[in-house]
Protein backbone atom coordinates (compact mmCIF):
# COMPACT_ATOMS: atom_id res chain seq x y z
CA UNK A 1 0.00 0.00 0.00
CA UNK A 2 1.13 3.59 -0.56
CA UNK A 3 0.98 5.72 2.53
CA UNK A 4 2.54 8.92 1.28
CA UNK A 5 0.82 11.30 -1.05
CA UNK A 6 2.93 13.93 -2.76
CA UNK A 7 1.62 17.29 -3.81
CA UNK A 8 1.74 18.57 -6.47
CA UNK A 9 1.78 15.62 -8.84
CA UNK A 10 3.73 17.70 -11.35
CA UNK A 11 5.67 20.94 -11.08
CA UNK A 12 7.21 23.02 -13.85
CA UNK A 13 9.59 25.87 -13.05
CA UNK A 14 12.46 27.90 -14.54
CA UNK A 15 16.11 27.46 -13.65
CA UNK A 16 17.03 29.49 -10.59
CA UNK A 17 13.58 29.25 -9.03
CA UNK A 18 12.84 27.27 -5.89
CA UNK A 19 10.80 24.06 -6.02
CA UNK A 20 8.66 22.92 -3.08
CA UNK A 21 7.10 19.49 -2.84
CA UNK A 22 4.87 18.26 -0.06
CA UNK A 23 4.22 14.81 1.35
CA UNK A 24 1.43 13.66 3.65
CA UNK A 25 1.27 10.33 5.43
CA UNK A 26 -1.13 8.49 7.68
CA UNK A 27 0.55 6.60 10.52
CA UNK A 28 3.29 7.11 13.09
CA UNK A 29 6.78 6.93 11.66
CA UNK A 30 10.36 6.47 12.80
CA UNK A 31 11.76 8.55 9.98
CA UNK A 32 10.85 9.97 6.59
CA UNK A 33 13.09 9.87 3.56
CA UNK A 34 13.16 11.62 0.19
CA UNK A 35 14.33 9.97 -3.00
CA UNK A 36 14.93 11.11 -6.53
CA UNK A 37 14.34 9.09 -9.71
CA UNK A 38 15.55 10.02 -13.14
CA UNK A 39 13.41 8.65 -15.95
CA UNK A 40 13.78 4.91 -16.34
CA UNK A 41 16.35 4.60 -13.57
CA UNK A 42 16.53 3.40 -10.00
CA UNK A 43 15.90 5.67 -7.04
CA UNK A 44 18.62 7.62 -5.28
CA UNK A 45 18.40 8.59 -1.64
CA UNK A 46 18.48 12.34 -0.96
CA UNK A 47 17.87 12.93 2.72
CA UNK A 48 16.49 11.31 5.88
CA UNK A 49 14.74 13.16 8.69
CA UNK A 50 13.97 11.44 11.98
CA UNK A 51 10.65 11.74 13.76
CA UNK A 52 12.20 13.92 16.49
CA UNK A 53 13.68 16.36 13.97
CA UNK A 54 11.82 19.31 12.49
CA UNK A 55 14.19 20.51 9.78
CA UNK A 56 17.23 19.23 7.94
CA UNK A 57 19.51 20.65 5.26
CA UNK A 58 21.75 19.06 2.67
CA UNK A 59 23.29 21.33 0.08
CA UNK A 60 20.44 22.96 -1.85
CA UNK A 61 17.88 20.69 -0.17
CA UNK A 62 15.81 21.61 2.85
CA UNK A 63 13.38 19.14 4.40
CA UNK A 64 10.84 19.87 7.11
CA UNK A 65 8.77 17.43 9.12
CA UNK A 66 5.60 18.15 11.08
CA UNK A 67 4.57 14.97 12.87
CA UNK A 68 1.46 16.63 14.33
CA UNK A 69 0.19 17.23 10.80
CA UNK A 70 1.80 14.08 9.41
CA UNK A 71 3.42 16.04 6.64
CA UNK A 72 6.82 16.85 5.20
CA UNK A 73 8.12 19.23 2.58
CA UNK A 74 11.16 19.17 0.31
CA UNK A 75 12.54 22.48 -0.90
CA UNK A 76 15.11 22.61 -3.69
CA UNK A 77 16.65 26.05 -3.90
CA UNK A 78 18.15 27.65 -7.01
CA UNK A 79 16.97 24.79 -9.19
CA UNK A 80 18.91 23.58 -12.22
CA UNK A 81 17.85 21.74 -15.36
CA UNK A 82 19.66 18.69 -13.95
CA UNK A 83 17.17 18.63 -11.05
CA UNK A 84 14.49 17.46 -13.50
CA UNK A 85 13.30 14.13 -12.09
CA UNK A 86 10.57 12.52 -10.02
CA UNK A 87 10.79 12.95 -6.27
CA UNK A 88 9.31 10.51 -3.77
CA UNK A 89 8.85 10.59 -0.04
CA UNK A 90 9.02 7.34 1.89
CA UNK A 91 7.98 6.62 5.45
CA UNK A 92 9.77 4.17 7.70
CA UNK A 93 7.47 2.67 10.31
CA UNK A 94 9.28 -0.29 11.76
CA UNK A 95 12.86 -0.08 10.50
CA UNK A 96 12.14 -2.94 8.14
CA UNK A 97 10.40 -1.48 5.13
CA UNK A 98 9.70 1.86 3.50
CA UNK A 99 6.33 2.88 2.11
CA UNK A 100 6.64 5.21 -0.85
CA UNK A 101 4.38 8.00 -1.95
CA UNK A 102 3.05 8.64 -5.41
CA UNK A 103 5.79 11.11 -6.39
CA UNK A 104 6.12 14.61 -7.79
CA UNK A 105 7.40 15.06 -11.34
CA UNK A 106 9.62 18.13 -11.46
CA UNK A 107 10.54 19.80 -14.74
CA UNK A 108 13.14 22.57 -14.62
CA UNK A 109 13.44 24.51 -17.85
CA UNK A 110 16.64 26.36 -18.81
Amino acid sequence: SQQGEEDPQALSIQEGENATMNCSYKTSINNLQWYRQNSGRGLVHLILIRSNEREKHSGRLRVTLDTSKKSSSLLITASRAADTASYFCATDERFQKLVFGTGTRLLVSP
Partner: protein
Amino acid sequence: SQTIHQWPATLVQPVGSPLSLECTVEGTSNPNLYWYRQAAGRGLQLLFYSVGIGQISSEVPQNLSASRPQDRQFILSSKKLLLSDSGFYLCAWRGRDEGEQFFGPGTRLTVL
Protein backbone atom coordinates in the same frame (compact mmCIF):
# COMPACT_ATOMS: atom_id res chain seq x y z
CA SER B 1 31.79 -0.26 -1.52
CA GLN B 2 28.39 -1.78 -1.92
CA THR B 3 26.78 -2.40 -5.30
CA ILE B 4 23.51 -3.92 -6.37
CA HIS B 5 22.92 -5.68 -9.65
CA GLN B 6 19.72 -6.52 -11.45
CA TRP B 7 19.24 -8.42 -14.66
CA PRO B 8 18.05 -8.43 -17.25
CA ALA B 9 17.66 -4.69 -17.88
CA THR B 10 14.73 -5.20 -20.23
CA LEU B 11 12.51 -8.20 -20.89
CA VAL B 12 9.62 -8.87 -23.25
CA GLN B 13 7.63 -11.96 -22.42
CA PRO B 14 4.38 -13.49 -23.74
CA VAL B 15 1.38 -13.91 -21.48
CA GLY B 16 1.51 -17.24 -19.66
CA SER B 17 5.28 -17.57 -19.79
CA PRO B 18 7.42 -17.93 -16.65
CA LEU B 19 9.53 -15.17 -15.13
CA SER B 20 12.75 -15.03 -13.18
CA LEU B 21 14.38 -11.75 -12.22
CA GLU B 22 17.58 -11.80 -10.23
CA CYS B 23 19.08 -9.30 -7.85
CA THR B 24 22.45 -9.58 -6.16
CA VAL B 25 24.19 -7.32 -3.69
CA GLU B 26 27.93 -6.98 -3.17
CA GLY B 27 29.94 -5.45 -0.37
CA THR B 28 27.54 -6.01 2.50
CA SER B 29 26.29 -8.92 4.53
CA ASN B 30 22.90 -9.81 5.99
CA PRO B 31 21.03 -7.00 4.23
CA ASN B 32 17.30 -6.52 4.14
CA LEU B 33 16.20 -7.02 0.53
CA TYR B 34 13.16 -5.64 -1.29
CA TRP B 35 11.28 -6.04 -4.57
CA TYR B 36 9.18 -3.13 -5.84
CA ARG B 37 7.07 -2.68 -8.93
CA GLN B 38 6.44 0.68 -10.54
CA ALA B 39 3.72 1.17 -13.14
CA ALA B 40 4.34 3.86 -15.76
CA GLY B 41 4.26 7.32 -14.16
CA ARG B 42 3.32 5.94 -10.76
CA GLY B 43 4.81 5.37 -7.35
CA LEU B 44 6.49 2.25 -6.01
CA GLN B 45 4.51 -0.72 -4.82
CA LEU B 46 6.33 -2.96 -2.37
CA LEU B 47 5.92 -6.58 -3.46
CA PHE B 48 8.21 -8.59 -1.16
CA TYR B 49 10.87 -8.06 1.43
CA SER B 50 13.29 -10.35 3.19
CA VAL B 51 15.22 -9.96 6.42
CA GLY B 52 17.22 -13.16 6.00
CA ILE B 53 17.84 -16.29 3.94
CA GLY B 54 14.58 -18.10 3.29
CA GLN B 55 12.53 -15.39 5.03
CA ILE B 56 10.06 -13.74 2.67
CA SER B 57 7.25 -11.34 3.52
CA SER B 58 4.62 -10.76 0.86
CA GLU B 59 2.94 -7.39 0.73
CA VAL B 60 0.55 -7.90 -2.16
CA PRO B 61 -1.19 -11.20 -3.02
CA GLN B 62 -0.66 -11.93 -6.69
CA ASN B 63 0.85 -14.48 -9.04
CA LEU B 64 4.42 -13.46 -8.20
CA SER B 65 6.71 -15.11 -5.68
CA ALA B 66 10.13 -14.33 -4.25
CA SER B 67 12.97 -16.39 -2.90
CA ARG B 68 16.24 -15.69 -1.12
CA PRO B 69 18.48 -18.72 -1.64
CA GLN B 70 21.62 -16.91 -0.52
CA ASP B 71 22.32 -13.99 1.78
CA ARG B 72 22.85 -11.50 -1.03
CA GLN B 73 20.60 -12.95 -3.72
CA PHE B 74 16.93 -12.15 -4.17
CA ILE B 75 14.84 -13.66 -6.95
CA LEU B 76 11.41 -12.64 -8.22
CA SER B 77 9.47 -15.33 -10.08
CA SER B 78 6.21 -16.14 -11.72
CA LYS B 79 4.93 -19.38 -13.20
CA LYS B 80 2.56 -17.66 -15.62
CA LEU B 81 2.79 -13.98 -16.46
CA LEU B 82 -0.28 -11.78 -16.84
CA LEU B 83 -0.58 -8.59 -18.88
CA SER B 84 -0.92 -6.69 -15.61
CA ASP B 85 2.56 -7.85 -14.56
CA SER B 86 4.11 -5.36 -16.98
CA GLY B 87 6.07 -2.65 -15.24
CA PHE B 88 9.42 -1.52 -13.93
CA TYR B 89 10.79 -3.86 -11.24
CA LEU B 90 13.23 -2.50 -8.74
CA CYS B 91 15.33 -4.36 -6.22
CA ALA B 92 16.71 -2.58 -3.17
CA TRP B 93 18.71 -3.32 -0.04
CA ARG B 94 19.27 -1.65 3.28
CA GLY B 95 21.38 -2.33 6.31
CA ARG B 96 20.09 -3.28 9.74
CA ASP B 97 19.89 0.28 11.00
CA GLU B 98 17.36 2.92 10.08
CA GLY B 99 19.26 4.16 7.08
CA GLU B 100 18.53 4.60 3.45
CA GLN B 101 17.65 2.01 0.86
CA PHE B 102 19.93 1.47 -2.11
CA PHE B 103 18.24 0.67 -5.39
CA GLY B 104 19.32 -1.36 -8.37
CA PRO B 105 19.00 -0.10 -11.96
CA GLY B 106 15.68 -1.87 -12.49
CA THR B 107 14.20 -4.30 -15.02
CA ARG B 108 11.64 -3.10 -17.55
CA LEU B 109 9.19 -5.98 -18.10
CA THR B 110 6.68 -5.92 -20.93
CA VAL B 111 4.13 -8.73 -21.11
CA LEU B 112 2.48 -9.08 -24.52
